[in-house]
């Protein structure tokens, strides 16, 4: 738990300020360097006297500590604290120097004396003693460790362990199966920041027929019904057990049609526009002879469901959108230019290299396509079928974007999570393959979900007040793909997920750092780059002010309520469950504390994540004469005390 509240000593009291939050009590210095483990997490290997490199040029800022490999993460434990570690914002599951194994993209060992280098996979041998370990992460971090003072054997062992455990042979070996932590989902009384637990709003999982019934009712799709023929996954392994079909199609017919579709995927209903036009996703029909007949039947059933009996519009996604390999290639290029070293030399070409990565172009293509579908649904008032060969990648993006644009419910926090559950998780997006958790098939790897989040970010950027969540939420959601504790993003389809039911179904990934109100996804892509940071600036400063103001309004409302209720005397100034991340100061007449821990990377810290200096600097520091005094004196130095 954290709060933006800063209690400062006043003239009246020279005693340290009272701790208002018991959870915030100062941590006693830990005597030994021990990894903080989650329930079920075990240490596999460790090495002492390891140096984490902070700067590429010099080692004076480097941190000393212990490198630990567990069955969940790579952890670096140190007594040294980084300068400017002021923000009291911590991840619930991961420490500042922790990297979940699933987030490790490549493990590279180096021996700079012998001039050798090797990329390590699982069960491999290493013929030299590594002096250096470089971890390339899926979230664009590059982390370097040096073993100059560590024992050569233990260094080798820990490298091999990291390589081995970051390449699990089987999904069963992913940490989610070992994790025996508490179940967040549905747990009552658990106060999570940003969420009102008793508010009745919860993420719908769509794993039972009543969830779908409720969704049909919410949307008012009376011509549609829940179909149960896939119970026990007898028809299709990649479809959910329950899904929605037109009332006019009988189970018998559906069973008959199923075999014509790719992987027996019967068309899935997604959503209805308020005009009654349905949005349906469909895979290709494998048998060309049956194609016309089956398509005809499905289309006419959808037409029947429409109040005006409008004909169906088919939108071929494979033809109009980039494929998954294109998307992956774009991300690789984008990563190149986002973390490219040296950063400042790429400055002049930033815009054109961004363009040549094609990532933005793809984001635009997806958004534009979604807008076209919305146009068909809304202005032309016709039902739309999203056609995709497998119906498990591109249609997830388009159907979600359409609903986000049209249905305000989807822009609430729970609405958004329910949407992801419905259109990604239950519809069988291959998270396991697309994330390449097992690092087995690189061809299947593709950041479709990240692309979707970027599209959402673009919408959010245009209409920040239309969304209940913020930029940070989207970033954390993207990161959670690499934290394999959440079954949500761990499997290829609902059946696989169900078979592995030992994994707890948790959905509150969102509760690490949630900002309630609102707020090139600079935050996602450039947050680790120290040069790209704006000290004491960025949109977060505006958000900070908004939060505080909203919180103040909340307090006032509370006071009013108390006056009305209790007939006179309010008892506590500050309501217990403030929704805001940054809270209003209840101490009056205290000058507004400049939020010096805020920067454009907040709440992420770029320190030590790209092995580059310039914690406080900017690209300028490089060509400044006497760069030593660069931003390090006075104003900023005072903050690091």
């Amino acid at each position, binding site marked *: 738990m954290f709060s933006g509240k800063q209690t400062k000593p006043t003239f009246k009291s020279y005693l340290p300020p009272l701790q208002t939050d018991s959870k915030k009590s100062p941590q006693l210095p830990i005597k030994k360097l021990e990894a903080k483990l989650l329930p079920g997490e075990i240490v596999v290997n460790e090495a002492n006297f390891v140096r984490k490199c902070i700067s590429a040029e010099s080692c004076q800022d480097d941190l000393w500590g212990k490198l630990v490999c567990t069955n969940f993460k790579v952890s670096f434990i140190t007594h040294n604290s980084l300068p400017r570690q002021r923000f009291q914002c911590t991840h619930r599951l991961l420490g500042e120097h922790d990297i979940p194994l699933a987030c490790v993209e490549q493990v590279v060992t180096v021996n700079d004396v012998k001039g050798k280098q090797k990329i390590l996979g699982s069960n491999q041998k290493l013929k030299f003693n590594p002096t250096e370990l470089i971890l390339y992460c899926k979230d664009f971090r590059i982390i370097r460790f040096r073993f100059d003072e560590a024992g050569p054997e233990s260094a080798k062992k820990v490298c091999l362990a990291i390589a081995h455990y970051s390449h699990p042979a089987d999904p069963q070996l992913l940490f989610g199966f070992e994790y025996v932590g508490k179940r967040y989902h549905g747990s009552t009384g658990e106060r999570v920041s940003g969420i009102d637990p008793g508010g009745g709003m919860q993420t719908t999982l769509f794993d039972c027929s009543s969830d779908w019934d409720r969704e049909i009712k919410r949307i008012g799709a009376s011509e549609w019904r829940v179909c149960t023929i896939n119970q026990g996954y007898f028809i299709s392994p990649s479809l959910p057990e329950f899904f929605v079909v037109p009332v006019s199609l009988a189970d018998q017919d559906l069973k008959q049609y199923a075999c014509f579709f790719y992987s027996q995927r019967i068309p899935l209903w997604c959503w209805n526009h308020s005009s009654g036009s349905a949005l349906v996703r469909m895979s290709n029909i494998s048998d060309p002879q049956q194609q016309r007949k089956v398509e005809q039947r499905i289309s006419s059933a959808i037409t029947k469901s429409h109040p005006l009996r409008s004909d169906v519009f088919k939108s071929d996604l494979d033809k109009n959108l980039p494929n998954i390999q294109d998307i992956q290639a774009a991300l690789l290029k984008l990563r190149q230019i986002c973390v490219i070293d040296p950063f400042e030399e790429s400055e*002049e070409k*930033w*815009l054109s290299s961004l363009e040549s990565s094609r990532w933005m172009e793809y984001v*635009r293509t997806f*958004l*534009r396509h*979604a*807008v*076209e579908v*919305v*146009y068909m649904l*809304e*202005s032309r008032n016709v039902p739309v079928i999203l056609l995709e060969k497998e119906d498990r990648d591109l249609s997830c993006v388009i159907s979600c974007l359409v609903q*986000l*644009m*049209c249905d305000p419910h989807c822009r609430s926090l729970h609405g958004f999570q329910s949407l992801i559950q419905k259109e990604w998780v239950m519809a069988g997006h291959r998270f396991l393959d697309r994330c390449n958790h097992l690092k087995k098939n690189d061809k299947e790897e593709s950041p479709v979900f990240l692309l979707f989040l970027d599209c959402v970010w*673009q919408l959010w*950027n245009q*209409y*920040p*007040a*239309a969304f209940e969540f913020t930029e940070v939420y989207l970033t954390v959601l993207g990161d959670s793909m690499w934290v394999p504790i959440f079954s949500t993003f761990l499997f290829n389809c609902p059946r696989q997920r169900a078979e592995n039911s030992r994994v707890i179904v948790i959905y509150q990934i969102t509760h690490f750092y949630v900002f309630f109100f609102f707020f090139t996804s600079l935050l996602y892509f*450039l947050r680790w780059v120290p040069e*790209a940071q*704006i*000290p*004491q600036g960025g*949109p977060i400063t*505006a958000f*900070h*002010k*908004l939060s505080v103001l909203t919180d*103040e*309004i909340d*307090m*006032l*409302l509370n*006071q*009013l309520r108390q*006056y009305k209720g209790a007939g*006179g*005397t*309010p008892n506590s*100034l500050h309501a217990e469950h403030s929704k805001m991340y940054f809270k*209003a100061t209840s101490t*009056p*007449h*205290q000058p*507004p504390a400049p939020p010096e821990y805020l920067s*454009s990377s907040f709440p992420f810290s770029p320190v030590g994540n790209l092995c580059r200096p310039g914690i406080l600097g*900017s*690209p*300028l520091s490089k060509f*400044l*004469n006497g760069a030593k005094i*660069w*931003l*390090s004196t*006075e*104003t900023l130095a005072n903050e690091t005390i």
Partner: protein
Amino acid sequence: MEKSGSVDSVESLCSSTTTRSDRSSGTRVSDTELRSKGRAIEKVLQCKYTSKGELPLLPEELVQDSAKDVTYICPFIGPVRGSLTVTNYRLFFRCTDREPVFGLDLPLGVLSRVEKIGAATSRGDVSYGLVCKDMRNLRFVHKEPEDSLKKSVFEVLMKFAFPVSNNMSLFAFEYKQVFPENGWRVYDPLAEYKRQGLAKESWRITKVNDHYELCDSYPAALVVPVTITDEELRRVSSFRAKGRIPVLSWIHPESQAAVVRASQPMVGQNGRRCKEDEKLLQAIMDANAQSHKMFIFDARPSVNAAANKMKGGGYESEDAYQNAELVFLDIHNIHVMRESLRKLKEVVYPKIEDSHWLSNLESTHWLEHIKLILAGALRIADKVESGKTSVVVHCSDGWDRTPQLTSLALIMLDSHYRTIRGFQILLEKEWLSFGHRFQQRVGHGDKNHTDADRSPIFLQFIDCVWQMTRQFPAAFEFNEYFLITILDQLYSCLFGTFLCNSEQQRLKEEVPKHTVSLWSFVNSQLEEFVNPLYVHYPSHVLFPTVGIRHLQLWVTYYIRWNPRMRPQEPVHQCYKELLAKRAELQKRVEELQREAANRTASSSSERAGSPTRSITPVQTYV
């Protein structure tokens, strides 16, 4: 296009976008559209008519001519027929056959060029092109009057659009609106130097330029080190280009490190030296006890500075100025900047090519120039703040790049200049009194549109300020609308503020006497220009990040004429609403408090057990 902003406006976005893209299959949702955000500038293509349909004329504004049946070739919605009216201040175009009523309302001052395009068609139609200083081009088609003696409305337009070329006075000299505040009193140099905390033992205000004899482009009040006599200053003035000697611009309240501005030394090919100039710079360094060094920032690329030696100019040699370190900031000259803006206009108006948007933008180098200017200012601010060293800033003449750099550095260093009034003082001081040649750079009322002296130097500065407001949304008291208003009024010639080239000229023309100051207008309706997110941190020095990745194209200025760049609901609009809500709640709580207090007082016997607690009001920061 209406401004969309409601919670459900995503729908309206989608529907309207698709409707459009359906009509003309070529249009798409553009990148910039996705990224664009900011305040609604309502002027876009809208013109507010009075309820009777009459033109709302300003005081002393007179209709000069009007014509019916003029066609405006709108690049976004196609040809529109309507009527055109020309006054001595503006151009009105109104089309009535459309809903909502479509109109154009622009001050003639924004026109840089009006020309007849091609010959008359068989139907007698003639096409006119209007090139504007504010990033748009307009095109009209009109029938030539049959009576060849009668002037066409466009000929009348040309006369009033370029009054200076036609020996007429600018509209600012006619305009007689009275505002509650007199903006000409905003800046008082002596009061400003006093506010900075000028140390009398090291600096003095000299009267040597009282009659603009030392330097006609400098202000009357100049601050120089006490150890330098007026006679020495006169010698220095013959050594510095245009007599623009090194004088104090700003002084750090604690370290006494100074920001000094000047023009280039007239070193020439023979390496001329000037004893008094060397003494002056030494004195400037000595005035700051914290440092035994000083930095001379030459804004130019070193090649340009060297080339200036051929023309008698140059830069300070290390031999002559031993404790000074010379740094070149690589900012290009006015011609390069003009060319860059011309390219930018090509890229953003009227159509934006989506598929190559980013590389096209890059090829204009506009953001790169912005970056270099900001980076230069940042280095100056850093030397003064972190290094506690005094700095001298100059370019060639010290009236273009120099005010860009000094004023940006001052905004970073001194939070006073981030307030609305402080910013006005900054412009009055660094730009107007120190002789940025507004008349030449903008070409007020002058038809010579190819004049090589025109350049968007001031626009670049405002763009840099805007970049900083993006990075520090809570550090500036003014909002984006304030910056856009300044730019619009720079061209409009409605106010006298940006007329003439120097303080001396403005006095000679009696500009303050005969015209209204822009600040009279602004300060009489401050609430329009206030950034609700503003927090006043007195000693907060801003160090913006100047990487290209953090610079954005100022879409809401450069692309505001494109109806597809509809402004998004800005955060501060929402914040304003919340502020109002808070005020309202605060009031209700206070009422209830009083009520409760009264009740407790009257029935204290009944409620003896529950003491009334006093409630501290929620603090108001704004």
